[in-house]
């Protein structure tokens, strides 16, 4: 059963990920992202992380992707990108080579297993013996990690204030009074391309 769930989940995840990377339209990429996020949530459930699965669906698929779509609509849904051109020389092959090299490295490290990669003995077997459930997670967050929790609360507040300030500032600047001619030129070229 778990094999089936894993294979389906993995297929959805990888398909979604490839959709994000390969689709020219940003809207389509955002929709593909939802697939990946749902797949991740399914695998969370498969690994008995039920709370995180719920949060994954609510926060990621429900809030963040909606935020992405919101921004897309704000800026115009037709933001497509010509994937056949690459302005930076050798960026694409270099990226693929670097990505594969990284993947290879991780595979190598994985095959090393519990043997020493960093010089310290690794552990793949249960150390605590407790089954991670919601109660244990809640206890851990609100006792062991309570300072990190407070810090993230502060971080969220700052992020909200920062977002407000950033967006408001853009309004106060006169768009005609542009101080960056280079940007202007670049956008004109881009406009011609599109």
């Amino acid at each position: 059963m778990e094999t089936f769930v894993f294979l389906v989940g993995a297929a959805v995840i990888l398909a979604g990920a490839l959709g994000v990377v390969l689709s020219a339209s940003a809207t389509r990429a955002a929709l593909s992202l939802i697939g990946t996020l749902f797949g991740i949530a399914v695998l969370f459930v498969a690994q008995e992380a039920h709370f995180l699965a719920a949060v994954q669906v609510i926060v990621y698929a429900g809030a963040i992707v909606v935020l992405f779509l919101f921004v897309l609509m704000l800026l115009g849904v037709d933001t497509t990108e010509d994937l056949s051109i690459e302005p930076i020389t050798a960026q694409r092959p270099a990226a693929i080579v670097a990505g594969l090299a990284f993947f290879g490295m991780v595979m190598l490290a994985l095959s090393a297993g519990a043997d020493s990669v960093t010089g310290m003995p690794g552990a793949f077997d249960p150390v605590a013996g407790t089954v991670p459930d919601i109660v244990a997670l809640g206890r851990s967050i609100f006792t062991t990690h309570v300072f990190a929790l407070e810090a993230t609360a502060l971080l969220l507040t700052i992020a909200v204030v920062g977002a407000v300030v950033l967006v408001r500032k853009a309004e106060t600047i006169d768009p005609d009074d542009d101080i960056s001619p280079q940007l202007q030129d670049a956008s004109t070229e881009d406009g011609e391309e599109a």
Partner: protein
Amino acid sequence: MVVTGTWYLVLSAMLFTIGGVGLLVRRNPLVMFMCIELMLNAVNLSFVTFARMLGDVDGQAVVFFVLVVAAAEVVVGLAIIVAIMRRRPRATADDLALLKG
């Protein structure tokens, strides 16, 4: 055929690599952001896997915090993108190269 933790980890590595390559090849800042989300999710997946393998709830706690930080990051990042896009519609990541030496 038993699904072991290694399967999840391999899947996580693939997802991370796809996200990373996507970040490098895409020019639309919004899509680049989504690629970053892919990479974060790959890491989350591996954390949850480790939590199950080690029987330790701290891996899940880390995922929880990653979610929160990702939310904050998306808020600020999208605000920046909106601020840029308002003045430079259709700007790509390559156009924002004022810091060229």
